[in-house]
């Protein structure tokens, strides 16, 4: 085996080992989404259910000193307290969800009707986000994404969102191009100046590039 070839081979194999540092999520949330339309055929709300991953849930249980008897169940009082606490989103938190209509981001109200439970070691948050202005959906389409802009939390939507309403609408999934998203992230990090990299909260907001897009279309 010519030594030159062995050298080139070994060097090429180095390509496979990812050498660059980069963002990657540390928390995972399985998400289910449902479009809810009112009687007039307008999109009125999105019903969201978040299933936090086991590690996130364990950390939260310990941080908040919950479930002291380790039986994996929350008391009614704990659940009520959590529902209130987890609904109290800070001003700058957009709820890790984005709805777009005709190229514009649609305003969503703060969460209401939240229910919190602990199932098989995972926190389940069940709530609704009402649209500030319901959208008439006849012959229209909207796009929905679930993502953390900083890409620290990864929202996975395993099932196609459902639709509840009078009209028979259609939902399709546009899968995210993870390779392109990674390239975008690396390019944006490269564009940051040295001062900016030192500031906290300057991570490139690439979360949407890593998230699938769901398109709801209704017949005219």
């Amino acid at each position: 085996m010519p030594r030159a070839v062995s050298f080139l081979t070994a060097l090429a194999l180095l390509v496979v080992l990812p050498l660059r540092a980069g963002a990657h999520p540390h928390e995972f949330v399985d998400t289910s989404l449902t479009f809810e339309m009112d009687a007039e055929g307008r999109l009125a709300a999105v019903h969201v259910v978040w299933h936090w991953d086991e590690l996130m849930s364990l950390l939260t249980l310990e941080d908040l000193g919950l479930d002291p008897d380790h039986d994996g169940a929350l008391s009614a009082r704990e659940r009520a307290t959590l529902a209130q606490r987890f609904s109290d989103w800070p001003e700058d938190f957009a709820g890790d969800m984005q709805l777009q209509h005709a190229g514009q981001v649609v305003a969503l109200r703060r969460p209401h009707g939240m229910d919190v439970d602990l199932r098989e070691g995972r926190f389940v948050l069940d709530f609704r986000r009402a649209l500030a202005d319901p959208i008439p959906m006849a012959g229209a389409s909207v796009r929905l994404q679930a993502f953390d802009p900083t890409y620290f939390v990864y929202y996975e939507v395993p099932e196609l969102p459902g639709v509840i309403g009078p009209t028979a609408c259609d939902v399709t999934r546009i899968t995210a191009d993870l390779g392109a998203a990674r390239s975008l992230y690396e390019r944006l990090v490269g564009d940051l100046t040295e001062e900016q990299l030192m500031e906290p909260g300057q991570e490139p907001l690439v979360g949407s590039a890593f998230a699938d897009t769901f398109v709801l279309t209704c017949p005219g």
Partner: protein
Amino acid sequence: MPRIAGWALAVLALIALGLAALGLQGWMAEAALGAQRQAQDALAGALRALRNGEPGAVAGFLTICFLHGFLHALGPGHGKGVIAAYAVAAPVPAARLVVIAGLSSLAQAVTAILVVYAGVWLLDGAREGVEGLAAAIEPLSFGFVALLGLMLCIRAWRRFPREQAGHGHHHDHDHGPECGCGHSHAPDPAELASARSVREVAALVAGVALRPCTSALFLLILTWQLGLDALGILGALVMGVGTMAVTLSSGLVAGMARRGLIGLAQDGSALARGLVAAEFLLGAAILVFAGSAALRLL
């Protein structure tokens, strides 16, 4: 290297390059994400079992720590790149690479342990505070790597053959065109292969060790909060062993690349000089990148 193994590697390399061209990044990103999720879930399950005192919980927990370190090290960071670059640039025997990879991975685990328990003592266990402490160490780590790059440059510079007198080896006789003494004035490849420097190794180990893995930090904080300190510390060390498995292989692969070069160098002094020049350039590159990273973070 046995013929068939060599050709098998060559085929694998071609496949790797092909995949890279076709978007390996996307596939790997997705696979890595899935693997990380599973690893974290398994860790949470093991911690719950430990907390509830289930039988077999400790063995299960340590196995998961090892796997976690291994899988996490396959992702970005963890000193793979630094160790591989060092193994390509510096003439390091395989046995020494084992020591380096082992020391740096375990030192990385020890750093995580020290950072967390310093944080616990100073900041009463606030998670954000401890993570802040870990982030503060990062510039130091890049500083050490930059230092390593500088040392590689200096060493390569010293080794570069000089045509004038005083190049560091002695002769009993004069040189002239009709000398015929039968040896070359280029750096001796065997000497290149046996050179070592304790300081280089120290800089390398420190460069890797001072960037504790976030997973190890999380693990240590979690176990501390759950009252499982000793197991957490043991788990972090086992995670370091898992990391070592990956950094070691990347170092060995890179070392193979270097040995390939050295084999070539025996045929001509020009190649040996080229090797030294490459060592200098690689050292310079490490110095520039790590140095700027360190300065950015200060």
